[in-house]
């Protein structure tokens, strides 16, 4: 090559092609996606909890997606009743789909563990409730207090014996820990999808996963 402008225009052309195909075009298609009626926008507390989730890097060990059930076993494992679809994520900014499963998937964690107390103990010391866990403990999301100093508004967390603080002190959740728990309890995205939503997604060419009926009932020839 002897011409600078061919080089510069060429590299701009290749990146532009990819940009149009994988960023612009999907954006045009995905604006049609509407929130399912069962999906609520996050509350302020849940959004704060989501920030705590991001700030402490939960996303580096936990995914939030049920993969295509035609070739993965996420559904059989009991992590959700169906594969995730774009509509499940319309309120998520940024996305937290995740790339690792050092820990289990969390997109439906509220269905498996609906108890806020379980989550608080688990955040304070995972090994107090799951002995083989390698999840970090997050003691800095809690305060240790003298029982005499506990206010009526404080959320006291009952930690089992070997992990409880010494000298009879009690563990109190900080607002961050409570918000994070609220966020985790909002993660339940396996409501059934409505047929109209399914049809709209299919027509838009958005999705070809089997959420819209059992695999046996599907005719592969008619799937886009």
């Amino acid at each position, binding site marked *: *090559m*002897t011409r*600078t402008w061919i*080089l*510069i225009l*060429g*590299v701009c052309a*290749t*990146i532009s*092609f*990819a*940009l149009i*195909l*994988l*960023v612009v075009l*999907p954006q045009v*298609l*995905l604006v049609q996606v509407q929130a399912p009626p069962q999906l609520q926008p996050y509350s302020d507390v849940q959004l704060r909890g989501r920030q705590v989730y*991001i*700030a402490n*890097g939960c*996303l*580096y060990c936990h995914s939030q*997606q049920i*993969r*295509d059930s035609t*070739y*993965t*076993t996420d559904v*059989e*494992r*009991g992590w959700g009743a169906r*594969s*995730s679809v*774009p509509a499940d*994520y*319309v309120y*998520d*900014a*940024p*996305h937290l*789909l*995740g*790339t690792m*499963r*050092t820990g*289990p998937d969390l997109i439906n964690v509220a269905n498996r563990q609906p108890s806020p107390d379980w989550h608080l103990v688990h955040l304070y010391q995972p*090994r107090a409730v799951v002995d*083989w*866990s*390698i*999840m*970090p403990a*997050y*003691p*800095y999301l809690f305060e240790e207090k003298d029982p005499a100093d506990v206010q009526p508004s404080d959320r006291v967390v009952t930690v089992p014996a070997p992990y409880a603080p010494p000298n009879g002190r009690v563990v109190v959740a900080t607002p961050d820990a409570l918000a994070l728990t609220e966020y985790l309890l909002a993660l339940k995205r396996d409501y059934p999808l409505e047929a109209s939503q399914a049809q709209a997604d299919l027509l838009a*060419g958005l*999705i*070809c*996963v089997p959420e819209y009926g059992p695999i046996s009932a599907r005719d592969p020839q008619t799937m886009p």
Partner: protein
Amino acid sequence: MSMRPLDAAVAPSDYDGGGVDIRLRADASSRRPALIAFSLAIVWLLLGSLWGDLASFKLHWPDFLSGAGWLTFGRVRTAHLNSVVYGWASLAMIGTALWMIPRLVHQELRWPRVVEAGIWIWNVGLVIGIGGILLGFNDGLEWLEMNRYFADPLLVIGGGMIGVALLATLAARKVSHLYVSVWYIMGAFVWFPILFLLGNAPWWSGVESAGVNWFYGHNAIGLWLSAISLGAIYYFIPKVLGQPIYSYHLSLLGFWTLAFFYALNGMHHLIGGPLPTWMVTTSIVASVLMIIPVLSLAINHHMSMVGRFGALRYSPTLRFVVLGAIAYTAVSLQGMFTALREVSRITHFTHWTVAHSHVGLYLFVSFVMFGSMYYIMPRLVEHEWPSARLIRWHFWLVLIGIAIYVVGLTIFGVLQGLALLDPQVPFERSVTASLPGLYLRSLGGVLITAGHFVFAYHCYQMVRMPAVERALPNFYEVRPVIYSGAQVEEAS
């Protein structure tokens, strides 16, 4: 060595023509900025290694240093990634590019003061961004965690100042043919700002946010880190061997197919995920088509080496760069294979992927950067490396370290993936299956970090060594024919 006409296209343009003068002036023009970039790169390398080791320990000792937020796994791991990607690798590549472009276009580096300022601005951005991550300010997107309002703009401005000066140098060039390394380096400096601005834009949400995240993430690897590293391989192998590259036409084919297919690869990070399936399929197809640039590059890099492997014993540059080139071929083939749905269903979400990324970013990119610095530094400070033994220690520590790291995490990552895929097996088994790999990773990581401290100490010793009086410039003296260790490089 006299040059046949086609050699203008297949050998670095400072290979022969232009004489000693042009090289000395080119080196003098980039000396200060390149040295600053390399020094700061080493600082980030050490910090990044320590963060990496700490994160690795925490995965098998989860209660180790868990009392403070800024030392929690999720923050330390992220500080590691950003330190080594935007600190170490990017600054080492910037230093290499600043040194190579003036040599390749026979022109002194334009606006060196602007470049220096750009490097410092980039580093201020890193301190704010990575410090912020440790304090809990994370944008929530992998590879784009640094704060988009306070840190990232500084990287754009600083990187832009460096890129503009390189473009100005290119515009004032005194050679007609642009050598292949120039294509890769200038391409990277055009691609990176487009990608970085796009990825950091605040308006993406839902699954589109995931699509843009991995469009950026994969291209940061392919069109920034890999591109400049490949440009460096194309420079150093012919340079050290005194032998043109194998084929000009293959280098053209390799460059343009890489530019086209690599940019379409990103969605293979989301296989099976809730995105439109055609997006993922597009990326799988493009990932497989990467066979074309990868084979073109492999033939060009490795055929130049055939019959000359003996030279690896004498040149630390060649040793690191050739291993880096082999790693590039290997990691690309592995990546293609992993992008297939049948493989991804097992390996996705496991430590296999972590091992894969370290073959790419360490054994390929970092090794090429070590090799480049072993060649460039003596030409900047005008004397040879003080100790062949320290170079050997560096080489073997990091090589053995990364071998343990990659083999351990790959094997136990697959076992983890098989446990995850079997719904009859409780989740616990995937954790216990991966644990031996996590311990091996810590062992490998400690060895790698030790190697980095050896390298940093050696660089420090070299920079503070007094200059040596010479009749001729460095590397132009007639030397005795009995060589030892690192004292030998081909004449500059």
